[in-house]
């Protein structure tokens, strides 16, 4: 088909393509009407899971999905007596994928409640969206201090960066006595907040700080200059915040540069949690961390949880799994009391659920909607042919 008719064919196909795109993108109604909440009065509830299915945080997403689904399974697929439909969206690595994922769940899938969010920047980015659309968000990981501040639609079952650090300060101060500590963290919000929290309780308990360093986030491959600074400062302990790949490299280098013996390494629990510990192996032995959970917790509730989880997924649970498990538990309690299944009703009910019985212990939401929970001092020890975070004691 030579000449003009071929051109016309191509141009027509172009028009058809654009038109088809426009129509396939169409769903009932238009985007100029007010967005309502979910359906009222039905016996089922729609829950959106916004978790990473790609990118660096994918392992966390996997753990959290497992924790949530395990609770659901234990309740025969019902929360608060109502059938649950789960809709998943990929939060990805950063807000540019996370925020649209949440928007999709809220505006297109019209979920009644949202659970998830690993990345703090994403959590901050969707705060306005969830309050505007009146859909409660139960943050199951993101730790930035200001994510939850008492607003009606944001609740958190995980932790605050500052809180995890603050829990450890007093214990380290007691352990060190007159000696000092060196602080180190990745230079982004989580690192800074964690160190700030630690500093607060550490100095309040009379501790001395020998110095601090913030390392470029995501691009540091060599911690030796900073480790040298720590050594030269005369500190007898180091407190750090690192997670993911940085945690693996940091701990391995800490060991290989020979600091392990004389200078005790302390950190926020993420330093040795989950897949990170598996990659660190022996290098992590003796590292002490604070966290609100360890799979080695010796309580009947936790033993039951660990057994069920290991049986279902052939791997030990991590703190991320517990956070999502508890999010499901919170929804369960809320839906029992809620006046219907709309987002507004669920949000209101979340305010009154009281205590949650969790594998980590008993806890409840505080006035900022963050967990008011116990923290544990853990130490990496050789356990059953591998390594695990043994619990030394509860941190007051």
């Amino acid at each position: 088909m030579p000449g003009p008719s071929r051109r016309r064919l191509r141009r027509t196909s172009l028009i058809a393509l654009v038109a088809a795109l426009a129509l396939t993108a169409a769903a009932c109604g238009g985007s100029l009407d007010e967005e309502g909440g979910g359906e009222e009065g039905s016996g089922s509830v729609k829950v959106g899971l916004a978790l990473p299915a790609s990118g660096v945080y994918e392992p966390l997403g996997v753990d959290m999905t497992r924790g949530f689904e395990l609770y659901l399974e234990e309740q025969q697929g019902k929360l608060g007596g109502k059938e649950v439909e789960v809709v998943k969206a990929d939060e990805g690595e950063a807000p540019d994928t996370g925020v649209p994922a949440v928007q999709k769940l809220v505006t297109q899938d019209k979920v009644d409640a949202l659970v998830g969010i690993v990345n703090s920047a994403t959590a901050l980015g969707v705060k306005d969206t969830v309050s505007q659309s009146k859909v409660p968000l139960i943050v199951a990981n993101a730790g930035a201090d200001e994510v939850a501040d008492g607003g009606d639609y944001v609740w958190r079952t995980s932790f605050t960066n500052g809180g995890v650090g603050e829990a450890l300060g007093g214990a380290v101060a007691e352990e060190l006595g007159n000696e000092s500590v060196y602080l180190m963290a990745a230079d982004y919000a989580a690192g800074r907040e964690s160190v700030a929290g630690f500093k607060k309780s550490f100095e309040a308990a009379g501790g001395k700080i020998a110095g601090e360093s913030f390392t470029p986030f995501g691009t540091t491959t060599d911690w030796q200059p900073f480790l040298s600074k720590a050594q030269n400062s005369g500190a007898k302990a180091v407190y750090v915040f690192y997670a993911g790949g940085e945690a693996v490299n940091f701990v391995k280098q800490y060991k290989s540069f020979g600091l392990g013996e004389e200078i005790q390494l302390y950190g926020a629990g993420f330093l040795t949690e989950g897949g990170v510990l598996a990659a660190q192996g022996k290098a992590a032995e003796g590292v002490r961390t604070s966290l609100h959970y360890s799979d080695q917790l010796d309580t009947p509730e936790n033993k039951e949880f660990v057994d069920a989880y290991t049986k279902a997924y052939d791997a030990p649970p991590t703190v991320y799994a517990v956070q999502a498990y508890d999010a499901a538990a919170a929804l369960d309690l809320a839906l029992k009391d809620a006046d219907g299944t709309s987002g507004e009703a669920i949000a209101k009910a979340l305010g009154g659920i009281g205590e949650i019985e969790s594998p980590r212990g008993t806890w409840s939401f505080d006035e900022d909607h963050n967990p008011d929970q116990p923290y544990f001092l853990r130490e990496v020890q050789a356990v059953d042919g591998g390594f695990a975070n043994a619990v030394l004691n509860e941190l007051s």
Partner: protein
Amino acid sequence: MDWLDANLLSILNGLALAALLFLIAVGLSLVFGTMDVLNLAHGAVSLTGAYIGVALLDPDAGAGQFVVAILAAAAVGLAFGGALALLTGGVRDHLRQALLTLGIAMIAGDILRQLFGADVQSVPTPNGLAGSVDVLGKSYPVYRLVVIGLSIVIGVVLYVVLERTQVGALVRATVADRGMVETLGVRSNVVLAGVFAVGAALASVGGLLAGPVLGAQPGLDNTILLLALVVVVVGGLGSIRGAVLGAVLVGEVQTLGVALFPAYASFLLFGAMALVLLLKPGGLLPARYGAATGGHA
């Protein structure tokens, strides 16, 4: 000498990082300089080498096992490089090369993620090399010193092969005047594919050797690619000496630079690169021959 004493470890670390970067980047530089091909899949090749380390080495691996892993990485690299040479053969335009090789890198990245998962993986240091030695009063990991040594040896071998052997002469001739070489009965695309393959093999081995230091995880290929690009552009496209100088510069900026100016750490690398490029757009030691210079010596 106080300053040296305080920063000796950083300087050594810079050299260790430079050694790894050289191995990884020299292939990229040669391929671009001699064949004018922009290969953005280079980082993926390197990451593949690292994952080979994850697959073949168990935590108690000895030096023997490590050598086997190196050979395996080299073999896989050769194959990958040959395939890339074939795929990019007909594509002359830089932008389309970038599109093609980046597409290949993305596909490779997804395959690696399917095979090895998204978790951070560790490559163990071989048993005999896991200790530390005394360097001027400081304790320093043996493995890094070995990496520096190995890299120097490979660099020297590469230089000698290229400048002093018949094979090297053939490569240089092919680059300088393909037509003339063809009249001698040599298939120039085979020669150039060979360069591509060897470059990829080096990148793969470099990735494996970097494993105990950098680990292996999805996304690392982009980090490595970016660093390699900076090394190549700063050092000068197409020259081995340029790759050495570029690697040392980048290695030291990332370690010594960060130690001396921690507040500006994130800006040091690209700031330094921008500075070099503005003062010497061709890089510090550009090639004396090659496609980048118009194909004539």
